[in-house]
């Protein structure tokens, strides 16, 4: 983790058309190469905040900048630099085969066919799916689908990767696979932001833990320090910490 700030959110607010505040005056800096967990109860604004980082949603007030360049007005750059793995693995499948799905992103960037192919192959290898390249994505298991979604993001070679609830509906081996993937991405120098109701699998990797509540950041800092306070905000404290207390 370097000292350069890669994501800078300033006084960000998002008001939905029905008047509800999804995110309310949030400021946040994330350093290059950091692994950040974003926790908070249902409806606390995690998904809404994440979607501002790659310009899928636009702020009602405030700004988001990636490496100093505002997202607004540079949408394509933001989306190339910030990859996002959505919660629902099924709804983000675009291709008819695994390979085609992974090639969707780089294809959109207007790269040459040879470059697209190379990136696709590399991404498939990284997540361990080359043998499934010609299979229909809908035939994959839950864990494989999630890895496919990661490959689809990796092939765009983003510097930042956002994961929205990456463990939901996954079995234990599936969770372990995804965590391994995250570990490898972190070692490669990617900046990673994860939202999850279940911090257990990733708490060991995290450099920072942010707690959201009602659209605001209520705690932020060292995971070990912040996790102790998690329960007060309706977040399940990671077992690792309960154990410590028990032991």
């Amino acid at each position, binding site marked *: 983790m370097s000292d350069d700030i890669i994501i800078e959110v300033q006084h960000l607010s998002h008001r939905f058309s029905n008047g509800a505040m999804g995110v309310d005056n949030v400021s946040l800096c994330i350093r290059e190469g950091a692994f950040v967990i974003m926790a908070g109860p249902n409806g606390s604004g995690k998904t809404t905040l994440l979607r501002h980082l790659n310009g899928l949603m636009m702020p009602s007030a405030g700004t988001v900048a990636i490496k100093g360049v505002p997202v607004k007005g540079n949408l*394509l750059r933001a989306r190339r630099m910030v990859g996002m793995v*959505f919660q629902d693995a099924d709804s983000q499948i675009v291709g008819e085969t695994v390979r085609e799905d992974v090639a969707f992103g780089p*294809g959109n960037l207007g790269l040459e066919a040879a470059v697209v192919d190379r990136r696709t192959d590399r991404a498939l290898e990284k997540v361990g799916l080359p043998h499934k390249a010609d299979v229909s994505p809908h035939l994959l298991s839950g864990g494989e689908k999630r890895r496919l979604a990661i490959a689809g993001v990796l092939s765009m070679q983003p510097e930042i990767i956002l994961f929205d609830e990456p463990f939901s509906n996954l079995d234990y081996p599936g969770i372990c696979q995804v965590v391994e993937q995250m570990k490898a991405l972190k070692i490669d120098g990617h900046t990673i932001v994860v939202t999850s109701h279940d911090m257990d699998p990733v708490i060991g990797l995290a450099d920072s833990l942010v707690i959201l509540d009602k659209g605001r950041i209520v705690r932020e800092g060292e995971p070990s320090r912040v996790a102790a306070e998690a329960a007060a905000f309706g977040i399940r404290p990671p077992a690792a910490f309960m154990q410590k207390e028990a032991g």
Partner: protein
Amino acid sequence: MGSVSAFEYQAGGTMAHTLDTRFKLVLMALVSITVLNASAWALLVMSCMLVVLCWNIRLPLLLAVKELRYFFLLLLMVFAARVLSTPGEPLVQIWFLEIGKKGLVEGAIVCWRLLLVVVLGLVLISTTRVGDIKQSVAWFFRPVPGVPEKRVATMLGLIVRFIPVIFKKAGEVTAAQQARCIGRRKNPFFRLKAFTIPLLRGIFRDAGNLAMAMEARCYSEHGIRTTASATPSDWIMLTAGSGLCLVTFFL
């Protein structure tokens, strides 16, 4: 559950598989039009060739018959309508229904034509990837002004993607309602409304999510290739095919 039709692309290396999809589509159109105007002799020639083609690509015959069971019913109706409405010397007379030789022959030919066209469609889908159809359509529309050919291609891909999703969602909604004893309700309006609203809500939400996921991956129209190149053997096939159509047209 899954796809619309029991028929899906079957990987293979036959001539029907490797022929350039644009050429396939053109040939399909030509042959369809020819068949619908062909005489009995021409139909015989065409049928023989189609049988060879079906054998060549190993068209699953049993599945085809199962798939077409309703279609056979339709053919029967067309046949009956044709037989009964064609004037001519009656062979048999049942009450006021007159069945004539001319009617029987014409009815048979009409049904035969329709059957050929439908089997031709099965051959096309079992030898062609949707991705290739998409790309060919984009290529065809490239010179047409006012039609955003790449967007059209994207939409074709999305249609094929959504169909199984709709069936799956419909299954889920049905299961959830059956578990709460909807089976006791006999009123069809109530059931239709109780079923359709959650279904449509759910799939519209999914479609919105998909659009967002595509956007996050920089959806742009660079992603669709509209270039394609044909090999000499493609041209030979096209020439041979259209020549045949021309000949049978006058047969």
